């Protein structure tokens, strides 16, 4: 290899390592653009790099090797995330495809999360794990991609960007949105130094603590969000239940009880915990992940967190809005649904309804598109397209008015006066004409692809039943 080739190779490798500055990049591109041999070498190196990443994400190292490395490094680097690859290849597994395509995990095509939650919990008994990453969406810890399934030890998480959902072994579920810096102290306490978290705390983790520089937030059985600005100002917003918030400093500082629908602020400027506007915008990315919705795209939008938002009073003419309903319901009887298997929902008078058997535990969500007439085109149908991916499998989708009504008794909000009719109009079986609503359950069984057309003043609603966590 000539010196020229060698210097070019170094530039290419530095580019692949992400350490080129603009000047070096300009030099690299100039050489590649002007010289055929340089171009060939450049493309060759990129092809090899890409292939190496694909190959090496698949097969090595062996899991036990990584484990011991993890344990030895942990003593030195308390914030280190143990990484346990080693699952099987899923090159052709459409099951995970759409989910992962949408969120673009690094190396997403090569493996599934390797440890089930049950296995992880067992290991935690003898290891200092305090949580497991149950979801990761474009998340990087100090530049290294975070993946679902990774165990978490005590230490500092520096989330450059993206979202991670941490399932603490106490039962608390905390979503962190980057950029954020969080000290993960133990399974009952985190210290948020900057950034946004939302938390859902079950009974087993009551008294879960989120500390910041200016406040201590103690959960009393609830769901809430905490945002810490660069100057340390802490905003606490309670979506459900209540929390206790105390100003940092003296132990004698009084605690303030904050109930659902309320918000408070703590800052260096004020000696007290002060009431604040109920502002949920900072939490709108993290909260859906707490609620079991991994991602929405297109016109699908997760409803703002809080007690005041339900299908009866929420007006949104532009989006297909997702409302979380009841969580972890054990079916006492058989429930009929319109769509239970992957594929497009088509109307058929001969096909029997898919049924969910009694005993199954599900969580329900209502998807709603409320079409208001526009002033310019009062008779024009409105169309919304988008998709929603849940963290767990979709076990049934209900679209017909009759079945929606049947299921309301179990999953509906008693404060809401549900309208009729409100059905989606799917394509009849064998009818290829355009213009019908499309509801497609993707092969990963977690993603729903929707294309709805609604006449003015009409309402489309679907109820989605998802396997309970």
């Amino acid at each position, binding site marked *: 290899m000539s010196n020229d080739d060698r210097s070019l190779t170094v530039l290419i490798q530095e580019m692949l390592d992400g350490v080129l500055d603009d000047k070096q*990049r300009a030099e690299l591109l100039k050489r590649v653009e002007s010289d055929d041999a340089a171009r060939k070498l450049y*493309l060759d190196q990129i092809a090899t*790099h890409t292939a190496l990443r694909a*190959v*090496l994400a698949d097969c090595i190292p062996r899991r036990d090797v990584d484990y011991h490395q993890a344990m030895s490094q942990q003593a030195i680097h308390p914030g280190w995330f143990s990484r346990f690859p080693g699952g099987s290849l899923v090159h052709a597994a459409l099951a995970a*495809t*759409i989910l992962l*395509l*949408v969120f673009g995990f690094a190396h997403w095509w090569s493996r599934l999360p390797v440890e089930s939650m049950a296995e992880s919990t067992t290991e935690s008994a003898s290891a200092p794990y305090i949580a497991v990453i149950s979801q990761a969406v474009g998340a990087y810890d100090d530049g290294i991609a975070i993946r679902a399934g990774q165990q978490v030890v005590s230490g500092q998480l520096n989330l450059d960007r993206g979202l991670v959902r941490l399932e603490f072994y106490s039962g608390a579920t905390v979503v962190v949105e980057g950029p954020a810096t969080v000290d993960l102290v133990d399974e009952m306490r985190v210290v948020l130094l900057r950034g946004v978290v939302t938390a859902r705390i079950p009974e087993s983790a009551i008294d879960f603590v989120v500390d910041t520089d200016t406040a201590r937030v103690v959960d009393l059985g609830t769901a809430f969000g905490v945002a810490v600005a660069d100057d340390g100002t802490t905003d606490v917003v309670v979506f459900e239940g209540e929390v206790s918030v105390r100003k940092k400093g003296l132990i004698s500082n009084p605690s303030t009880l904050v109930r659902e629908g309320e918000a408070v602020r703590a800052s260096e400027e004020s000696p007290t915990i002060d009431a604040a506007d109920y502002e949920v915008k900072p939490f709108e990315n993290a909260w859906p992940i707490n609620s079991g919705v991994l991602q929405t795209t297109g016109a699908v939008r997760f409803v703002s967190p809080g007690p005041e938002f339900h299908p009866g009073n929420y007006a949104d003419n532009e989006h297909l809005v997702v409302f979380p309903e009841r969580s972890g319901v054990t079916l006492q009887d058989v429930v009929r649904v319109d769509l239970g298997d992957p594929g497009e929902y088509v109307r058929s008078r001969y096909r029997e309804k898919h049924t969910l058997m009694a005993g199954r535990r599900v969580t329900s969500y209502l998807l709603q598109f409320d079409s208001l007439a526009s002033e310019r085109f009062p008779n024009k149908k409105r169309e919304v397209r988008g998709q929603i991916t849940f963290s767990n499998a979709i076990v049934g989708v209900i679209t017909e008015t009759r079945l929606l009504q049947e299921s309301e008794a179990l999953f509906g909000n008693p404060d809401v006066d549900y309208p009729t009719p409100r059905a989606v109009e799917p394509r009849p079986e064998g009818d290829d004409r355009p213009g019908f609503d499309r509801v497609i359950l993707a*092969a990963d069984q977690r993603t729903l692809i929707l294309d709805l057309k609604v006449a003015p003043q009409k309402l489309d609603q679907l109820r989605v039943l998802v396997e309970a966590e």
Partner: protein
Amino acid sequence: MTSDEYFLAVTAIQNRLRAYILSLLADPVAAQDVLQETNLVLIRKADDFHLDASFESWAYSTARFQVLAHLRDCKRNRLVLHESFAEKLAPSAEVMAEDTEQRIQLLGRCVEQLSDEHKSLLHKRYGKDISIAKLAEDVGKTASAMKQVLYRIRNLLADCVEQHLGKGAAG
């Protein structure tokens, strides 16, 4: 092509799209973002894909538009412009990307012939995206020495791939 087949095709082309986008952008971080954007567009526009068209052409063309859109944004933000570079390189990048799957197969065999130490190093670098500086720090070497080690391993692999290609051609 059914919707399932379409999504399968999107899955199958990921490695090729990654190589293609990376070559046009010469920036791995931006390439990751643009790959995600491309995937979203491919999913959103599934209905626009015509059966008589080549899926690969459709996917590369979508990726190219996303690359150009990204470069236009960069121009606004950082006064850096490589659109002409991307446009000029696109045809040969597509040819290179199409070979990626074969290269993956060959490399898979070649990596297995490496020592455990080298495999582990490569895995950390390429499987986990650990930076060269961090790798060097972990084993008490300088970054420059670590680069040399990786450089030699890659040369070994390149030779091995060439040998396999030679056998394939002979056979």
